[in-house]
């Protein structure tokens, strides 16, 4: 589904990704772990198409197409979802308005008709219920005044509504208490654990992996994957630290 080959990228003229390769197939959950500054968030942003995160070499294909050729909104329409470490607050735009715009823009991009207001609301409420988010929060401005946990739940509600093929979740566990962590973990499993979907979990800590069992764990250090393994690698990292494992 996602094939990253020798990807190089820079931010502000500084090379952060230095030849990163990774294959993610449909039905798989991959965890990318690594110390601060290893390039984890940069990888998420480069794949998401954020301006300022410039690929300088290598290639990325997603569902058989060149991902790096596409603009950010085209990547979303192609089925890529980027979950943010720090979801942005947007005063003046309600969650419902934002999500309906987003979903219908993606549907348009795929040649599908828009959902009506009623159809959309039904879908949004079902996803909010599944994540334990109050319906009132759907009407509120996007993420404004939301706690850290509420923002991350909102990311999962968005993911549930949009229904992507591939979710790249950047530090989705940061700032979560244990209840929110559980809700978010269950959300990821419910929405994304399917034979035709895949997940790339970017995380610093092992704790989210207690709820979302990865099939593969990779260690990212200094801009490339230095080690790959099964779920046991996450425990080894937790026990021995990045220094020992990545060395």
């Amino acid at each position: 589904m996602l094939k990253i080959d020798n990807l190089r990228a820079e931010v502000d003229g500084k090379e952060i990704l230095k030849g990163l390769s990774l294959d993610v197939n449909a039905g798989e959950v991959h965890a990318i772990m690594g110390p601060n500054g290893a390039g984890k968030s940069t990888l998420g942003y480069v794949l998401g198409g954020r301006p300022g995160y410039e690929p300088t070499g290598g290639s990325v294909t997603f569902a058989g197409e060149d991902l790096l050729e596409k603009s950010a909104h085209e990547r979303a329409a192609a089925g890529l979802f980027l979950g943010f470490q720090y979801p942005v607050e947007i005063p003046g735009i309600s969650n419902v308005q934002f999500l309906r715009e987003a979903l219908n823009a993606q549907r348009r991009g795929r040649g599908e008709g828009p959902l009506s207001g009623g159809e959309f609301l039904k879908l949004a409420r079902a996803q909010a219920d599944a994540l334990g988010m109050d319906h009132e929060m759907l009407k509120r401005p996007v993420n404004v005044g939301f706690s850290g946990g509420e923002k991350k739940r909102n990311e999962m509600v968005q993911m549930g509504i949009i229904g992507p093929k591939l979710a790249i979740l950047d530090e989705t566990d940061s700032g979560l208490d244990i209840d929110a962590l559980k809700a978010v973990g269950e959300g990821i499993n419910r929405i994304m654990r399917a034979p035709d979907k895949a997940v790339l979990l970017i995380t610093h800590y092992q704790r989210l992996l207690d709820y979302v069992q990865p099939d593969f764990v990779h260690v990212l250090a200094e801009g490339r994957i230095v080690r790959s393994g099964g779920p046991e690698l996450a425990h080894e990292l937790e026990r021995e630290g990045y220094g020992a494992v990545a060395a």
Partner: protein
Amino acid sequence: MTILELPSPRLEEWRWADMATLKAAADAEPRDAGIRPADLFLDGDGPRLLFVDGVFEPAHSRPGPVKVARWAPETVHPLGGMAEGEGWVLSLEAEAAVTGIQIVHLGSGGESHVPARIALGEDAVATMVETYAGTGWANRFARFDLARGARLMRSVRLLQADGFVSLRDEAVIGEAASLVSIFLGAGGMGSRIDGALTLTGKGAFAEMGGALLTSGTQKQEAAVAVRHEAIEGTSRQLWRAVAANRSVASLAARVEVARGAQQTDGEQSLRGLLLERAATVNLKPELEIFADDVKCAHGATVGELDARALFYLQSRGIDEARAKALLTHAFVADALGRIGDDAVRAAFEADAARWLEAAL
């Protein structure tokens, strides 16, 4: 009009005024704007008045309690003082109510001058919408007298394709009376929205604000002074300016609190959004306070669209132009949100959305 009569940009209060565009509009040959007057009225069965090039058009009007009369304003304001001739008068008895008044001004070029006088008796209520369309220089003066407990809600939209609109409001607001005027500048014309509101009664409320949207080489401007002369008055000046291309939007807002006007609550919020680096937003907040027990909040900021918010929207599948339009619309939403009537607010929001579609 001669150019000598126009205010000089060397005067501080007129330094951002685009008198060159005003002059050009005044000198422009008339042309058919191709606008059907009926399209400029919102739905509703309230009184309607149409002025074409400053002349009352009975065929498209049903003035109801609004009278058409010739008169000359008494004002020292340089543009307001020129607005003499055929105009309109709304004078309401105590406790009378007239809602949904619509005044449409359609211009075809050249200069037009219309004075207006609005006098509301005690506890009288009125709501009105004014629309400016077409071209030319539309120069208007409006005098408001609100007696105790009177309430006026007024929404004004400037939609002229080009030319210039100059508005001068002078208001005296009595005890517990309330005047709210919200403006939207979403056409291609130059503008000067100029107001002097005086709160003379205890517990009066005055609000003047809105959104100016500029593109191309357009210049729009609001210059408002609110003067608190009595105790427990409240004033609000919430303005948003959005400037694209090489346009200029300027906001000057002043609050004066006279000696003895205690427990005044003044709020001033001026914010500008630059859609391009070559655009300009000028902000000038001013406070002059001679009482010691007052609350005057003020804020003035200019910035660009938040790049993080822009990427967040794009990452969810919204294209760049639409994402910019959504964020810009959100930026002006709180100013237009001050319009109380749902249908009027929706119409103004649609005007703003049309402007955004064209500008982005």
